[in-house]
């Protein structure tokens, strides 16, 4: 019997529903509704469903996961974190873009060399979440007005305490992200070694 039928029968019998209104659940159902495309704004639920590394999360897990996130708004050219800072968090780009620089020099006000421009639905800073004493290896600067969704060490601890399965799943996905980055790094090192060999042979 469907929920609607059950409730209709209860009401017809004059019984009151013992179920209380669960506002967060209603909000989630509203966000997850197939008709939500009518609203132009993308919801956190839609956003995370489109991120490939979190695709194994069920709808309910996405809903729980978003409860641990912090929304941070950055203006264009505002620094998210600097190279050498202690890192505590992992960021997803909800809107806007972020430039990643290395060889940043604070005293000379030089942002350094641009490594990559990260766009919407990309992520950065995952090492800060896992390492105990993490130092940021690059500087992140908002390329335009940007909204980031950040998750930090205390949130991960809380997630593992309150929803251990979700916490373990998220840690597995974070480990996967790092494994992918390692894979890319290895490929780049191999390519660089090859180039060095070629140059040596030419000389």
């Amino acid at each position: 019997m469907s929920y609607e039928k059950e409730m209709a029968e209860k009401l017809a019998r004059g019984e009151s529903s013992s179920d209380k209104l669960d506002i967060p659940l209603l909000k989630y159902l509203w966000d997850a509704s197939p008709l939500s495309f009518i609203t132009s704004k993308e919801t956190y639920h839609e956003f995370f469903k489109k991120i490939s590394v979190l695709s194994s999360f069920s709808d309910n897990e996405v809903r729980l996961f978003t409860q641990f996130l912090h929304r941070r708004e950055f203006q264009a050219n505002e620094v998210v974190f600097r190279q050498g800072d202690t890192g505590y968090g992992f960021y997803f780009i909800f809107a806007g873009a972020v430039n990643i620089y290395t060889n940043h020099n604070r005293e000379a006000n030089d942002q350094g060399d641009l490594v990559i421009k990260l766009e919407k639905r990309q992520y950065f800073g995952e090492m800060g979440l896992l390492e105990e004493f993490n130092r940021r290896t690059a500087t992140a600067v908002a390329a335009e007005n940007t909204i980031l969704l950040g998750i930090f060490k205390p949130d991960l601890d809380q997630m593992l305490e309150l929803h251990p399965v979700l916490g373990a799943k998220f840690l597995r996905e974070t480990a996967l992200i790092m494994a992918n980055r390692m894979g890319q790094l290895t490929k780049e090192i191999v390519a660089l070694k090859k180039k060095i060999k070629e140059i040596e042979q030419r000389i």
Partner: protein
Amino acid sequence: MNRNQKIKLYLFLFLLTVAVVFAIVFPRLTMPFGFSYIIYLISKPLTIRLTTGSKKQRLSYFLMILTATLFLIIPLVATLYNVDTDFVSFKTELSQAQKVLQDKFFAFKVKVFEEYGFKINIDPISFVMTKLEGLATDLLGQFPNYLSVLFEWLLLVPLFLYFFFMESQNLSRELLEAVPNPIFEKSYVLFSQFNTKFGEYIIAKFIEATILGTIVTIGLLVIGFPYAFILGLVAGVTNILPYIGPLLGIVPAILIAFLSKDPNVSMVGMLVVFALANLIDMILVFPLLVSKIVNLHPVIVVVSIIIGSQLAGIVGMIVIIPFIAFFKLLFKEIYKDLSVHL
């Protein structure tokens, strides 16, 4: 930092200052709020255990609030029920104690005069006893005030507890949104670390006090010392204060042993029980439970307790330790950051 960021930072600092000033100006709200927070921290691990993976979250919150309220109601009812008879018996016992002390002091005066030919003219016993009697009368006079405060707490503590259990996570998330970006990561992590440290410290001290109180009670019962339960409770509660607490906890027991005419009441036995309880605390309980949480030098601890007592009395003496531990952590973090960037 650009102009907008600076404005956000100054606004945030202003709001923080307003909150601190509000807390100082309205202690009638701050004290039950702080008390509720401590109860929340103590019950949090148990609540998490009860609620993880289950839907009985509201029920466990309700049980926690009910337990805390009962802890407030029971002493209130007990005090109201016995207040007049207790006061009369206290006055009678005080006059009896005064008589015993005066007899002992007189014997001491005679002995000094006989052996050294020196006459003692002062009478400290009457002076102290008159002061004590005055203090007891003042306390009774102030009783309606204490009662109204207790009733106020009875209303406020469950309310605040409900707030902490149900809303604290959402509210802290909303408040955190006001923290400016440049200091967000660090302040959030430090705030969380302080919360964890403070919670762990309070729970550790609570367990330590319970263990010590139980050992003292059992020990005193075994040697047949009177008021074993009350003395155990006093020893446990005073033990919350580091270094000074154990000394304070033994004072009532020494007084009872000194004033008692019962030959079965042994001063030596009582001292052995207290020494043993404190030894177990020092060797086993403290190193295992508390020292890892608050790694502070003893001199800093003693100085902090004095500062805490000046600022907020007994409550200040207890809560100053985790605050100092937090400031140590904060300075360490700032120093680490400076050493990287300079």
